[in-house]
């Protein structure tokens, strides 16, 4: 099977510091793949390189076999590579329905339509409403995003990405800052996503990682330390040394 997402010797240098170093990663279609590593290991940098948020100093990114290294962020989104952000990037003054409709409209190529009111684009709104229903956000559909509790805002962060109908979804600490019971619910939602969506996850909570991931890559100092099945990673001595220790013993 061709990998849906692949990198070849991907590097990012800031001055003399390597934030990413020679990362060669290969992700199969339908994978549930976690990226772990201590703080500053370059996990978010890697997502930034994959999505075109940052330009690599060297190396290539392939999406479904196509070299997308030189493509802009929005062009990669159009090809099915979508991310969420570690720190919410939402449309504070829009209602939840408006935000998600905006994302749906962009995917449907309606973003240049400047004559018909948004409210008349029934297909887009229906789709947005359905997505809100799936994510249990219907009750706040007409609420302004900024006035929602943090946990629900985190859900909208994911809703905006799902509205773009990703084939590969990159989740950057989706549960960061969310209270435990709500983060359970959030992960249930993520776990229920269909297999057509390949998921790459960055997460600090090892419980969640080992429950969710079917394959784990460990990053240290910007470089890939190892990649394997969760049970192998859990036993890996080097991984325990650099990172996991207590999380697994405890």
């Amino acid at each position, binding site marked *: 099977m061709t990998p849906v997402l692949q990198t070849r010797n991907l590097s990012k240098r800031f001055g003399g510091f390597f934030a990413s170093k020679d990362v060669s990663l290969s992700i199969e279609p339908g994978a549930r793949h976690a990226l772990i590593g201590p703080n500053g290991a370059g996990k978010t940098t890697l997502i930034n390189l994959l999505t075109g948020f940052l330009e690599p100093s060297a190396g290539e990114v392939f999406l479904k076999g196509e070299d997308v290294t030189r493509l802009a962020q929005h062009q990669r989104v159009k090809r099915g590579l979508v991310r969420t952000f570690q720190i919410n990037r939402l449309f504070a003054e829009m209602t939840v329905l408006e935000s998600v409709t905006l994302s749906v409209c962009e995917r449907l190529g309606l*973003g240049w339509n400047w*004559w018909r009111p948004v409210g008349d684009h029934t297909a887009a709104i229906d789709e947005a409403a359905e997505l809100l229903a799936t994510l249990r956000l219907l009750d706040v559909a007409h609420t302004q995003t900024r006035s929602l509790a943090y946990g629900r805002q985190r859900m909208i962060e994911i809703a905006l990405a799902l509205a773009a109908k990703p084939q590969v979804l990159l989740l950057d600490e989706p549960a960061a800052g969310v209270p435990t019971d709500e983060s359970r619910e959030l992960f249930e939602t993520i776990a229920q996503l269909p297999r057509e969506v390949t998921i790459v996850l960055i997460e600090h909570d090892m419980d969640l990682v080992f429950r969710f991931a079917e394959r784990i890559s460990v990053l240290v100092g910007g470089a890939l330390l190892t990649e394997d099945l969760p049970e192998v990673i859990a036993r890996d001595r080097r991984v325990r040394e650099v990172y996991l220790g207590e999380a697994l013993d405890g």
Partner: protein
Amino acid sequence: MTPVKLDLSPLRRAAAWHWAEYAFWLLPLVAYFVFPKNLALLSQIAITALFCLSLDLILGYAGIVSLGHAAFFGLGAYAAGLMAKYGWGDPLLGLAGAALAAAAAGFLTSFLVLRGADLTRLMVTLGVSMMLYEAANKLTDFTGGVDGLQGVDIQPVLGMFSFDLYGKTAYWYSVAVLFLMFWVARRLVHSPFGLSLRGIRQNVGRMPAIGAPVNARLVAAYTIGAAYAGVAGALLTQTTQFVSLDVMAFSRSAELLLILVLGGTGSLYGALIGTMVFMAAHHFLSDINPQYWQFWLGAALVLIVLFARDGIMGLLRKLSAPARTPS
């Protein structure tokens, strides 16, 4: 259609006309009968309102700050003036020519505006307008320089309504153009394109991540804003049959920004109401105290920026919010 039960009316209602809007658009009619001797001032208000609307499109929706928007107003003014001087005196043709000239300039300079953030944009727009001002100043054979462009001969509107001494035609012509342009702008801001501009203003970093080509949208918005400003400039030329160099002056750009902040950005009506309040205040205050009226203007501006960030429209919204029936 969808199994999801959700009342979509709040979303639909956003684009529907509110009764207060119908009432608002009766004002030009009322003003005509209440102030029949002030038609020249009323025309100026309509023209400045259109100019302010053009700034609201780029600042209030796309989030591009500009201190040089008079450049496009001035280009439109000169384009319409030169066309009329050299035999193309049909007013609507003049508007089209002005819109095209300003849009072309807006399109070309938009690529400078894309670079950098607010301060850069302020300086770039200011710089572009200063260059155009000096060019108009220097090209005396073409623009008349400081003496202004003479010999602007405007034909009757639609071949029927000639511009009269009382300014009746000028007034109705300006109001009609303002209304039509407003109506189009209103469609635009409620469309998916308008929604994407609001998205860019509210969180420019998220937009590429949902697949929106941000730069292309900004280029389009800036070009449209420039075209609108050009039409406003052309209206001034056509209703006064003269172009003075100060159509491009820095003070015009700065005043426009002030008016928009006073009225409130991002609602279209803020631009219109801000213009009405500002020009009326200007008229009355400068009658009372010709030298120092700007003192009160300055005071009002400081108060608004400190205590009513969303301008007059923000205040109106706050006042009407409790009265609105919950949906």
